[in-house]
């Protein structure tokens, strides 16, 4: 009989091993996707050599001028060799994968810097928004879910249901567009976009923090509007289910106060499903919603990846896809582990 600790260790090891084939699948799919596209790496280098593309700033137009460029054949061959395109596909993939495993994601065409550094530079912005969104989501959804469960089928319940579902129905980026055109352009109450003011670095720490908060009011509303419904309803339904469970009946029957039975016994158990959503946050930190980032021109990782697609900066696109899919897999594992931590009934099989 293994102890719980050993079982946990074996379980994590097994799950991590299972991730390997999935990881290979993901990387192969994304590699394929980026290899066969026009305006890919070779074309980019051709443009750079021909001087037609000033550092890759001309977004999206990579494919159009391709035909006019004349690069000597031997130079092209050198380029193909450099990127491994002269090798058969499996060999090229293996070479690329070996680089990835050594955490070498290549060099961005657009920024001419290592992809890892380009992404890392954008990370603080994404993490800031990710954390704030998570705090607000849980800070509002859990109490609201509890309230709705206790006041099930009353006017408060119906009204808040209406509100959160209307919020759910509104696409965040469209709401963001309305907010910015109204509050930033028409009434000039908030800044138009960006993460901070241009001169923010020269401000004192307090003024700097205030500046960032000032810039994030509108985007946060756009981020949050749609995020209440799912979590609140999960909390509500889970608490309702627990409130009608036998153990709560027993607690009440032996004379416990209703308050104690619900808030101590039922509530603790009903928080377990909330833990399942926690691991997913790992991915959200990175991706965010690049639609909202684009509306408010927030320089997060999501927007970076979108711009990389536009400018055909495929090392960044690939790097982003690899990192975010790995984070998603780890997030799923993390969710399961958190559930196992808070719920001793879960067995590792």
């Amino acid at each position, binding site marked *: 009989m293994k102890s719980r600790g050993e079982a946990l260790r074996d379980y994590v090891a097994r799950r991590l091993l299972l991730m390997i084939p999935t990881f290979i699948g993901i990387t192969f799919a994304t590699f394929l996707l980026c290899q066969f596209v026009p305006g890919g790496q070779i074309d980019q280098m051709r443009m750079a050599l021909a001087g037609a593309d000033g550092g890759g700033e001309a977004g999206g137009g990579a494919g159009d001028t391709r035909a006019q460029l004349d690069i000597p054949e031997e130079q092209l061959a050198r380029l193909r060799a450099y990127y491994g395109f002269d090798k058969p596909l499996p060999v090229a993939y293996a070479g690329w994968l070996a680089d990835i495993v050594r955490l070498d994601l290549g060099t961005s065409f657009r920024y001419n810097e290592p992809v890892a550094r380009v992404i890392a530079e954008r990370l603080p912005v994404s993490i800031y928004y990710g954390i704030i969104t998570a705090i607000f989501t849980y800070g509002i959804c859990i109490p609201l879910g509890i309230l709705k469960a206790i006041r099930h089928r009353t006017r408060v319940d119906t009204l808040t249901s209406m509100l959160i579902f209307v919020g759910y129905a509104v696409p965040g980026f469209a709401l963001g567009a309305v907010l910015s055109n109204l509050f930033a352009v028409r009434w000039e109450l908030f800044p138009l976009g960006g993460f901070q003011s241009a001169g923010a670095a020269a401000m004192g720490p307090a003024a700097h923090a205030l500046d960032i908060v000032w810039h994030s009011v509108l985007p946060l509303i756009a981020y949050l509007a749609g995020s209440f419904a799912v979590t609140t309803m999960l909390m509500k339904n889970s608490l309702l*289910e627990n409130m009608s469970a036998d153990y*709560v009946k027993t607690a009440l029957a032996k004379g416990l106060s209703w308050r104690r039975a619900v808030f101590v016994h039922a509530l603790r158990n009903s928080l377990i499903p909330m833990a399942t959503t926690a691991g997913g946050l790992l991915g959200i930190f990175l991706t965010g919603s690049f639609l909202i980032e684009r509306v408010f021109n927030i320089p997060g990782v999501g927007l970076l990846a979108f711009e990389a697609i536009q400018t055909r900066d495929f090392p960044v696109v690939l790097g982003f*896809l690899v990192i975010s899919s790995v984070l998603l897999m780890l997030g799923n594992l993390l969710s399961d582990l958190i559930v196992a931590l808070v719920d001793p009934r879960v067995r590792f099989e």
Partner: protein
Amino acid sequence: MRWFRLDPVTRRRLQRFRRIRRGFWSFVILMAAMVLSVFAPFLAESRALLVWFEGRPYFPTFQYLEMATFGQEPPAGWDGREIETEYFRLQREWRVEREMHELARVRAGSDAAKLAALDAKYPNRGNFVVMPPIPWNPYQNDFSANETLPEIQSALGAGNQERAERLARRDGLADLARAIADGSIATLLADPEKSPTGTLAGLARTGAMPSLAKLGTSPPHPPDAGRRHYLGTDAQGRDVAARLLYGFRISIFFALFLVLSAQVIGTIVGSLQGYLAGRFDILSQRVIEVLIAIPGLYVVIILAALFQPSFWMLLAILALFQWIGITFFMRTEMYREKTREYCLAAKSYGASHLRIVFRHLLPNCLTPLVTFTPFAVVGAIFALTGLDYLGYGLPAPTPSWGELIDQALQTQNRDKLWLILAPFGALTATLVLVVFIGESVREAFDPKQFARYE
């Protein structure tokens, strides 16, 4: 039909759905809007519904009728047989003839010869045009604001007062028409304070003649009931209301087709996973794991950037990632249902696997399918609008909400609030209806009766 005969459980669920008023009425309204949108050519179209010309009706909605048919004057340099009738202009031209005929008759008194001459001068006074409520199609660029003044100016220059007055009346410039009729226009134009250039354009610029003030500007134009742009025009001078309507039609049917195809694929795969289990289940689960770990929208954008997809191609690309969600539920349902007695019974009398899955098991596993479909529709509309906003959705002139939002976010359009409020309102209204339907369906199909202690 026996497949779809409603069993008592389903009938009770439908009754429960009807009793949830919010959801039921959302359903009714959305269905009505969809049916209406199918008839969009009768609601927003530059072709008239009916033209009554010299005692005979014409129905141009689905028919090409050249300008010469109705004797409409073609633009300079064109032949009336070369271009299609401009019905909205025709409507206003004939209406003006009627008005001026009336006015002239009053002035003429009871002189029979004069009256007869007048009747001959305004031959179209008895004709009329019935336009759709929105007399614009979603692709049409309305640049009339730039064309009206030069037209009147050239009529004035040619000394044709009567034609100038007619044109001014046609375009609803009442004060200009009056000034032309009583001759005061000459003094106005001569006054350098009011018209520094001595032309109508100068009058428009100084604001001396209020009705001209909005002419001579370029689109987007704000809502203008007189021009029947109820929600204004976009940056290309296209009617926003017409584009919203056609955008609704495209979005909702795109979403329905997408969800339908995705759910069919997802249901088949999920059912087979649950029923066959074993190797097929494990293998396909790995494939699904790969697919869900890839950020779908990015891949869709990459593919869309490569192919510049058409309606059906974009649908296929999006379906690639949309079918996964439902497989999990169908798989679980199948795992549970296949151990039931009726399944064993079907197996024992020799039913084939396919027959067992799709004939016996599937009808009992439909609850997740029904309850998740409305939310999948919301997701599909989100995706299409988002892609259109990014410029990777349906190809360019297609009327689309996302494209309007993109226009509204261009720096020069940001203060033109109708450009953002119109698509936002349409989007929100549609999605709220779908979400309310979804919520009510879920509640009707899955009513948890909870004990309450209070």
